[in-house]
């Protein structure tokens, strides 16, 4: 892989705080190495802004190895940028070429209000988990880990759903700002395990109710979420959630 350097035009969303209106600002960055990560390119931009006496661009990031789910940039019309199964922090500059213009926006959804620049508030996801995304077991109550054998397929599918990093790219990608992929990943993760069985029905009903309350849209199965998910969480989980919801609501006592 040949390394090269490039000059870029960046169109970045700037917004002082949640109460003010934002707009795009254009910046030039020079001599960007193709080996940099996208966020390192933003580090360069920020150092440049600081040296010019301007405020750096605020953006969420932490682990920078694609697992914490904090980074959240909408790059050239795609959450996490052009690569498949990838987070913003793992996107590298060899995805771009000299002279490119890159438009960077925050996640857009009413349930994810902008806090500042490219930083959004995703606590709505935490509240969805609070509504039932857990197994009610107090510390110290557990039986032996091998007491309940779990069918390997179920364990594997549960793990595949549990890989969700809660970044919110699914919401950002969805034309309806729906959180169904996130929600269904958690419901599937727990519904596929025998430990999740006792709360299976209340969990799905309460979590859907909370999702609606937070102001996420309804799912129309377009598949945009699956296509942009850095962990390739499958759309199948949404269908499984629908089945869980239907069976839970039809079999409710009251």
């Amino acid at each position: 892989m040949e390394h090269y350097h490039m000059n870029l035009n960046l169109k970045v969303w700037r917004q002082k705080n949640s109460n003010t209106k934002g707009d795009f600002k254009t910046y030039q960055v020079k001599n960007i190495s193709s080996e940099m990560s996208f966020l390192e390119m933003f580090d360069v931009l920020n150092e440049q802004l600081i040296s010019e006496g301007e405020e750096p661009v605020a953006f969420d990031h932490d682990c920078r190895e694609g697992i914490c789910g904090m980074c959240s940039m909408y790059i050239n019309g795609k959450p996490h940028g052009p690569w498949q199964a990838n987070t913003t922090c793992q996107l590298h500059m060899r995805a771009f070429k000299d002279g490119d213009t890159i438009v960077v926006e925050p996640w857009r959804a009413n349930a994810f209000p902008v806090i500042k620049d490219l930083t959004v508030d995703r606590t709505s996801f935490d509240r969805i988990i609070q509504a039932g995304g857990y197994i009610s077991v107090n510390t110290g109550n557990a039986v032996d880990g091998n007491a309940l054998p779990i069918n390997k397929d179920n364990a594997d599918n549960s793990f595949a759903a549990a890989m969700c990093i809660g970044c919110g790219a699914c919401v950002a990608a969805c034309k309806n700002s729906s959180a169904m992929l996130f929600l269904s990943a958690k419901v599937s993760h727990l519904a596929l395990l025998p430990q999740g069985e006792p709360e299976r029905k209340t969990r799905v009903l309460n979590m859907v109710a909370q999702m609606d309350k937070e102001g996420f849209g309804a799912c129309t199965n377009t598949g945009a979420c699956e296509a942009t998910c850095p962990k390739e969480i499958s759309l199948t989980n949404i269908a499984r959630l629908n089945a869980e919801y239907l069976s839970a609501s039809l079999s409710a006592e009251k």
Partner: protein
Amino acid sequence: MLNAKIPTGPLENKWAEYKGHCKLVNPANKRKLEVIVVGTGLAGASAAASLGELGYKVKAFCFQDSPRRAHSIAAQGGINAAKNYQNDGDSVFRLFYDTIKGGDYRAREANVHRLAEVSANIIDQCVAQGVPFAREYGGLLSNRSFGGTQVQRTFYAAGQTGQQLLIGAYQALERQVALGNVTMYSRHEMLEVVTIDGKARGIIARDLVSGKLERHFGHAVLLCSGGYGNVFYLSTNAMGSNVTAAWKAHKKGAAFANPCFTQIHPTCIPVSGDHQSKLTLMSESLRNDGRIWVPKKQNDTRKATDIPEEERDYYLERRYPAFGNLVPRDVASRAAKERCDAGYGVGSSKQAVYLDYADAILRYGKIEAGKQGKVNASQEEIIALGKEVVKAKYGNLFDMYEKITGENPYEVPMRIYPAVHYTMGGLWVDYELQTTVPGLYALGEANFSDHGANRLGASALMQGLADGYFVIPYTLGNYLADEIYNKSIETSHPAFEEAEKAVSDRIHQLMSIKGKQSVESFHKRLGKIMWDKCGMARNKEGLEQAIKEIQALKKEFWSDVRIPGEINEMNTELDKANRVADFIELGELMCIDALNRNESCGGHFREEFQTPDGEALRDDAGYMYVAAWEFKGEHQWDLLKETLNYDVIKPTQRNYK
């Protein structure tokens, strides 16, 4: 001399004895007691959830936007537990023994034994929470082996064990939030510990969105804020990982133990240039099949594939014919550094060595061809078959490497270099995990207690969860039982006022410097000093120099740092400045500690103290103690010692040759 308050009696009975006799708090009183938990990684989230379940009023703080982001999430390999599911001779004692030996006999026996005892409960607890551990076809839990042990005791969830365990703890925590037992403060950073009459009574936290300072009272304060590897600027830690909470506690009286014990992991993706912001770990398992080499010629600029076999130096195989590429982490790391420093490094930065899979591909290809009965398989066919086998074993790691470097590791050798990824040192704690400040506790990587001078793989997750789920619920009760007579203190108390003013003054001072250099540039310079002089190998001269350089850097920082923006708004530069200011002070203490310890042990390698063949040379007579440093004033620390007594294990020289 520090008193670790280790229960008397035989080692294997200590924890049971303690639990049987520690004081309890009745449920009605628990409701009146408030506990503050700083940090929501494995230790913090599990502690906050467990204490909430018990009925305490808990306030949990994290600087990220959600507790699920904590860097425990990045742990790949697995979690150890003495379950002996494999019937291969594992036991609590063996896990205890391996951990003490791995720590190069610088850990406390009683703590480590307790850790081994509760390790099995952790797995049960996590399974009950719905952590999807890997399973066999029969539906039972799967294990794999890990470095430094002879048994299979590591439980895992693909390469994302840390993520799955953290999500389990996070879910338990969110359940307590929903039940009203825990109040969660995300995007909050703890900036001061409040002490009243010598006891920890609360914290001052900054709301990172509004920039406002908040006062929070607690009958006890738990610091679960992780390690300080970011003092090196480049590490496998998350960007936000910081020492601030622990450092504030230290400056309020909590002793800081063994700060110089840092672990350097040999197989990381190397630095690609000055822009580099963090490093990514590649699982150690790659060394099982890969061969490590550098060119025999200095500054060789040829492509790896153009360098003929006879011009390659397989330096680990050459220097350590018995262990070859499988020498322990610290040895592999130091050997790579030695080659690169001598000018044999590869890649554009010249700070890397090759990890080559060409031989493994051929070897596996031949086996596979044999299995399939292809007697006259061509070289191409064999390579293709071999690649398939390697892909099945290491595919996800190879993919990650390609994503970051843009190079195809099936075709060209990978480049690797050692990187900082864990800190064994931390706040000194006694058997109850209490620091030297009453009511102030430290859990997980933030404390020093269990790993001695070197941590074994798959032990960090175990320790974080042991502390949070199974230790602190007992030991905290023992302290809080006496606190039921003390009502919550109003945050208008002068101690809170004073603490908030100190924080506010410092922030205003930082903002008023209005210098020329960015926070990042100072952090990079600190990292370079630390890496060069207090990194993989240290010596007296370098450490003395480093101390001077860091003191000068501190002065420069406080007179020339530039922080744009305002105080009362989201200001990521100000957040960073607060952290870097503390890292600079910590860096000095690390060098002082490294200078004090005139021996080599585990992750601490003093060049003056090595065996003739380059192995770490311990000095048990002189240094079998925990060096806990008490803050006395700027650039001044007192050394407090905790002598380590080995009642059960007899320390020997680690010999891996």
